[in-house]
Each structure stands twice: as structure tokens, then as C-alpha cells.
């Protein structure tokens, strides 16, 4: 990438980050200690931390400058420029450290395991405690916090930052994680989720307006809808629910200007609520994942049983075919001057029967022990096989079939027969899809391209209707079939084979048929 592009991208990121940060700082500047940013709600550090986690510590200068600018814009440098610069350095340094620790300790930002959530919560709580101590320490050393005990200010800062990050960072993680993001959006369309949001809103209203002056005394009521939401929708629900509660608390506090609400206590309760929601949500997710995995395993075990039974049944006629074929060969051999064409044809029948039995055997072996016989296979050979399959599949159907490939391709390290099973599957599906769409200009293409250094991507495309978003969900599960006559094993077995190779098989999110098969190459020493 040219450096000017890099710079442009960097400037664009800064142009998004800085205004958002300052806006959040301004919106959350409530109930402060003196004129300083010691408030019980600080969501903006989450923005800085997530940015530095995803983009790297290269963003540190921009973060520092933004924090400085925010203090100038929002609070008009209450402690003078030296103090503002010092505190900005403390904050930016602290957030960078938290970002670095999270990035190092978390393998990704998915918050998909209890371990990840534990690390996230621990780093945030410990980190904000340290940042708060340093920040308040600087101010109190400068004698700017007269009248406010150090502990009070520190607690307020700590709770504000902790709750801000715990609530906001998961939302930001979700926004940058395509899978989680789309899950959150689809959650918003669920009627039950809507009902839950309404209940949550009503409870927030009740604890602020319904039960008298002290909302913190009825705060525990929020745990009930939160548990409902987390149990039903896992982490996604918990993230959204805590965000809604936070917004409710902020609105409640804002609507009661003048009334001395115990904002710090409320936010402390919100920390407890958020941690409960995150842990409950991730546990629900984990359990669901385990259940799904178990179901898949059981289904594949059933498929294995079936493969064994089918292998047995298919081997019987194959045995007969091969014996008859050899008998015919023997009869023809008795007459050396006899017809040679027949001999040749019977030879072909025999070799095809052998191939069929080999496929059956390998499929059965695959289910039995998961044995995949990897060997070096030229991509060209696989493509010629694909071409043969395609051409015989489209015969007389008025569909065009083409194979596209770059001039040179690396050697693959795969089980040829198993990959041929996958290709045959994908091509047959494509033909069926195009033919079913009743299209005159049906077109199927198999293309191959490099996928990084270690993999090759084979793309099978057709201009049929493709797989609908609803069908994509269970597409690769065994015994889920979109065809009236299908057993629903083809794609399940194909994906299992691809994954056993260390590759993958995915359906593209497009409006035509498109499958991506990624396979490993031979590693050059």
C-alpha cells in the first residue's frame, strides 16, 4: 500500500474517532467532582481502547491529542494547561496499556468464552482503578481537589470508567465483528427482543419515577429482565440490555437535574448488573455452542452408520459387476482374434467399478476413522476432473460450463478422491439449481485462485437463484436438504472433508449460487 494511502486512511480514522470521542465526553460529563472529568459515567475510554486494540498503538498520539482537545472543548482546561497535558498523558497512557493488555491476553474481540469475558472484566476493572488513582493523584497533588477526599474522587472516576468501558466496549467489539454485528441486528427484529426492551424500559422508568426518590433501592429489579434477556439471547442480548439500562440511567439522571441522585451508587450497581449480564450471556452462548456441536457430532455419527450400511449394500452389486466383467473378459480372451473393442469396453467397465468401490471405501473410512489419505495433487488434475464431471453433468441441458484458472497453480496436498467427491457434489448442486431455475442462459463456472501462501481457493459459481439467507443457516448440517429427493448429506460430508484437510467450505452471501472451497497446498520447505 502506498504511504499516501496509509496516511489518508489514518486521517480518515482520526476524523471519525476524535469527534465521536469528544461528543461522548461532552454527553457523559455529568455529576463531576469540581470542574474535572471525574464523573460516574465515562464511555469514551472504550472508544479509545477499542481503536488502539484494533488499529494498534500507532493511534496513541491521536488519542492523546483528542483527550487534550476534549478537555479544552468540554471543560475549558479547568486545571490550567500543564495539568490538562499531564492528565491527558496519564489517561492516554493508561488506556493504551489497557488496550495493549487486552490485545495480548484476548486472542480476538469476540467475547465468546468465559475465559475471554473474565480477562476482559479483570483487565478493565484493574486498569481503570490504576488510571483513576493516577489521574486523581495528579489533581490532588496539584491541590486542585480541595474539599473532596481522594478516595471519593478515585471511586467516582474508577466506577465511571469501568462501567463506561464494560458497557460500551462490547458494543464496539460487536460493531467491528461481522458475525456478532449481524446477530445483533437480527436480534433487534425479534418480537420477543422488542418485548424485552419494553419491559426493560418500563422497569428503568419505575425505579426512577415510580418508587420515590432513591432509584438505587429498587435497582435490583433490573436483574430480572436482564437474566431473562441473557438466558434467551446470550451475549448479544446481554450487551444490548446493559446498553439500554445505561442509557436509561443517564436519561434518568439528566431528567432530574437538581435532585441529588446517588449517581455513583447507581453506576456501581450498573457495574454489577453488567458483569452479571456478560457472564450469564457468555455461559448461555457456550452452552448453546456445546449443544450444537454435540448435535452435529451425533448427526455425523448417524451419517457414519449410514455410510457403512450404504457401503455394504453398494459393494454387493459392485462385486457382482466386477466378477461378471472378469468372466466376460476371460471368455473374450479365449479367442485372441476376437473383437478387441469389446475387451476394451469391458476393461473400462471394470476400472470404473473399481473406482466406484474405491470411493465407497474411502467415504466409509472417512466416517469410521476420519482417515484422509493426503497426497500431492496437481491443481490441474483436479480441474480436468471437474471439467469432465461438469461436461457430463450438463449434457443436453443447455447449460454452459467453464473452468477458469491462472497460468500457474501450486501443488495441492489433498485426498484426491475425497476432493473429487466435493467437486462432484458442488457441480451437481449447481446444475440442479440452474436447471431448476428454468433459465435459458444457465452458466456454471469453476475457478481457482491462490488464497494466501498456503491455500488455494476453488470457487464454483452458477447463475441460479443461490441459497437464501434463511437456508444458509442449516445448509451444512447433515440431513438438512433443500431438495425433495436429497438426503442432505452432500454438503455436510463435503464440509467435513474440507475441514479434515485443514481447509473450509463456505457458501458466499450473494444472490446467485457460489461456494468457496479452500484447500491446503504443499508447503515448500
Amino acid at each position, binding site marked *: 500500500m502506498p504511504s499516501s494511502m496509509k496516511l489518508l486512511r489514518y486521517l480518515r480514522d482520526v476524523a471519525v474517532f476524535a469527534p465521536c470521542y469528544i461528543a461522548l465526553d461532552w454527553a457523559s460529563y455529568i455529576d463531576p467532582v469540581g470542574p474535572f472529568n471525574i464523573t460516574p459515567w465515562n464511555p469514551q475510554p472504550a472508544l479509545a481502547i477499542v481503536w488502539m486494540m484494533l488499529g494498534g498503538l500507532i493511534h496513541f498520539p491521536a488519542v492523546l491529542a483528542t483527550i487534550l482537545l476534549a478537555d479544552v472543548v468540554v471543560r475549558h482546561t479547568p486545571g490550567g494547561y500543564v495539568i490538562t497535558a499531564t492528565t491527558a498523558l496519564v489517561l492516554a497512557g493508561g488506556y493504551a496499556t489497557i488496550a495493549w493488555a487486552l490485545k495480548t491476553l484476548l486472542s480476538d474481540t469476540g467475547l465468546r468464552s468465559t475465559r475471554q469475558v473474565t480477562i476482559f472484566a479483570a483487565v478493565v476493572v484493574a486498569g481503570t482503578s490504576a488510571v483513576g488513582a493516577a489521574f486523581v493523584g495528579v489533581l490532588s497533588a496539584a491541590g486542585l481537589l480541595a474539599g473532596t477526599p481522594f478516595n471519593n474522587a478515585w471511586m467516582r472516576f474508577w466506577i465511571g470508567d469501568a462501567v463506561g468501558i464494560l458497557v460500551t466496549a462490547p458494543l464496539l467489539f460487536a460493531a467491528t465483528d461481522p458475525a456478532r454485528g449481524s446477530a445483533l441486528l437480527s436480534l433487534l427484529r425479534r418480537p420477543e427482543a422488542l418485548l424485552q426492551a419494553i419491559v426493560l424500559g418500563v422497569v428503568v422508568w419505575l425505579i426512577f419515577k415510580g418508587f420515590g426518590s432513591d432509584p438505587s433501592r429498587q435497582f435490583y429489579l433490573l436483574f430480572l429482565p436482564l437474566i431473562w434477556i441473557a438466558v434467551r439471547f446470550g451475549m448479544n442480548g446481554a450487551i444490548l440490555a446493559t446498553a439500554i439500562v445505561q442509557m436509561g440511567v443517564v436519561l434518568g439522571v439528566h431528567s432530574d437535574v437538581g435532585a441529588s441522585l446517588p449517581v455513583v451508587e447507581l453506576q456501581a450497581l450498573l457495574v454489577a448488573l453488567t458483569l452479571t449480564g456478560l457472564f450469564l450471556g457468555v455461559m448461555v452462548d457456550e452452552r448453546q455452542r456445546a449443544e450444537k456441536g454435540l448435535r452435529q457430532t451425533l448427526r455425523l455419527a448417524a451419517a457414519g452408520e449410514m455410510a*457403512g450400511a450404504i*457401503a*455394504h*449394500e453398494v*459393494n*454387493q*452389486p*459392485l*462385486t*457382482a*459387476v*466386477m*466378477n*461378471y466383467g*472378469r*468372466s466376460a473378459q*476371460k*471368455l473374450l480372451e479365449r479367442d485372441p482374434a476376437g473383437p478387441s473393442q469389446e475387451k476394451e469396453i469391458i476393461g473400462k467397465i471394470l476400472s470404473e*467399478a*473399481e473406482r466406484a*468401490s474405491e470411493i465407497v*471405501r474411502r467415504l466409509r473410512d472417512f466416517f*469410521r476413522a476420519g482417515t484422509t489419505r493426503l497426497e500431492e495433487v496437481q491443481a490441474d488434475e483436479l480441474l480436468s476432473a471437474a471439467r469432465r464431471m461438469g461436461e457430463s453433468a450438463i449434457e443436453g441441458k443447455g447449460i454452459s460450463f467453464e473452468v477458469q484458472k491462472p497460468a500457474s497453480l501450486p501443488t495441492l496436498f489433498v485426498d484426491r478422491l475425497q476432493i473429487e467427491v466435493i467437486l462432484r457434489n458442488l457441480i451437481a448442486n449447481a446444475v440442479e439449481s440452474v436447471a431448476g431455475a428454468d433459465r435459458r442462459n444457465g452458466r456454471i463456472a469453476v475457478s481457482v485462485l491462490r488464497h494466501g501462501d498456503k491455500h488455494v481457493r476453488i470457487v464454483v459459481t452458477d447463475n441460479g437463484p443461490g441459497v437464501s439467507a434463511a437456508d444458509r443457516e442449516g445448509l451444512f448440517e447433515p440431513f438438512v436438504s433443500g431438495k425433495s429427493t436429497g438426503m442432505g448429506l452432500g454438503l455436510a460430508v463435503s464440509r467435513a472433508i474440507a475441514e479434515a484437510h485443514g481447509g473450509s467450505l463456505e457458501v458466499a452471501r450473494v444472490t446467485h449460487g457460489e461456494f468457496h472451497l479452500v484447500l491446503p497446498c504443499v508447503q515448500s520447505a
Partner: protein
Amino acid sequence: MTVFVIDDDAAVRDSIALMLGLEGYRTAVFADAEAFLAAWRGDWAGCVVADVRLPGRSGVELQSTLRNRAISLPFVIITAHGDVATARAAFRSQAVDFLEKPFDNVHLCAAIETAFALEERRIQREDGRRSDLEKLGRLTAREREVLEHAARGLHAKEIAAALGISPRTVEVHKTRIMDKLGVRNVAELVRFAIAATPSNGK
């Protein structure tokens, strides 16, 4: 010698019979173990080519049934279910070979040849024993008495004393016996007596 093909799949047993017939083997086909047992005759010789999985008695069970009846017909086990359990069962049953369907005819023929060689040796052994019994049958009652004593290692004088005849007569009997049995000396005579009448040896 005959190849007895036992498989419940009609096409499989027909095709095996056809193939083996063209290879020059005599074959007989059965749909299951019970049909084979019902048809069994004591003078059958050759080998059995049986599927592991049959309705009723399995191929391996048929083999042990035959062994219990002291029928040592060699077995070639075939299966369309090449899993470890059936392979182990076939191995334990001491089948000549274990072939996975679809098999190569060369392997099947080789297995059948091995089985036939085993059967050949068994027949030779049995023929030898039969002719021995026949020869023994030619002896007179007295001669058989002399042979029995001689087999126990008694000398002519001792035999004479035991039977109340003269040692000279014993010698005459011995010469006759050796003549009839076709043995050259007393050592061979003793060996023959023990081999032909194993129950006497105990």
C-alpha cells in the same frame, strides 16, 4: 474338489460361480449356511467361500459348526463390511483368507488354491489311514493278537508264553503279518501297529 460358494446375494454368488467356472473350478452355490449343511455329504472335498454376514448362521459360525463335527473343510471368508470386528472374527476362525468385497479374482483364486492344497494333504492322510485299516483287516484273529503284543514291544518268547504257542509259531505269524502289511522289519511293524490302531497305544 469343489468350491462351495455361500452368499445370500444371488448376483454375487452367481457371478462368483461363473468366474470360478471359467477359471476351471467346479462350484456349488448355496444361499445360506443352513442350505449348505442340509446338503452336506461326507465325501465332499474342496473349500468353502462364504460371506461373513448371512441370514441365520454366519460364515464364521458355519466354520465352527463344521469343526465341531470334525469336518476340516478350509474356509475363505468374504465380506462387504471390511471392518475390524469381522476381520478379527475371521482371523480367529483360522480361515485360509479374508477378502473384502469387491475382491480381485486373482486373490480369490490364490486363496482357493491354498485351501485346495490343505485339502489335498488331508485327503492323502486319510487315504493312507484307510489303506492301513484295509491291510489290518486282512490279518487273521491270531495274527492280530500277535501284532497287538508285538506293538507293546514284547519279544517272540514272551508273546509265545502269553498266547500259549511256541516261539517258532510266533515267528511264522510275524513273517506273515509283515508280508500282509508290506513292512520290512519289526520296527516298522510296531510303528504301523501304533499308527493304525491309535486306541491301542493308550
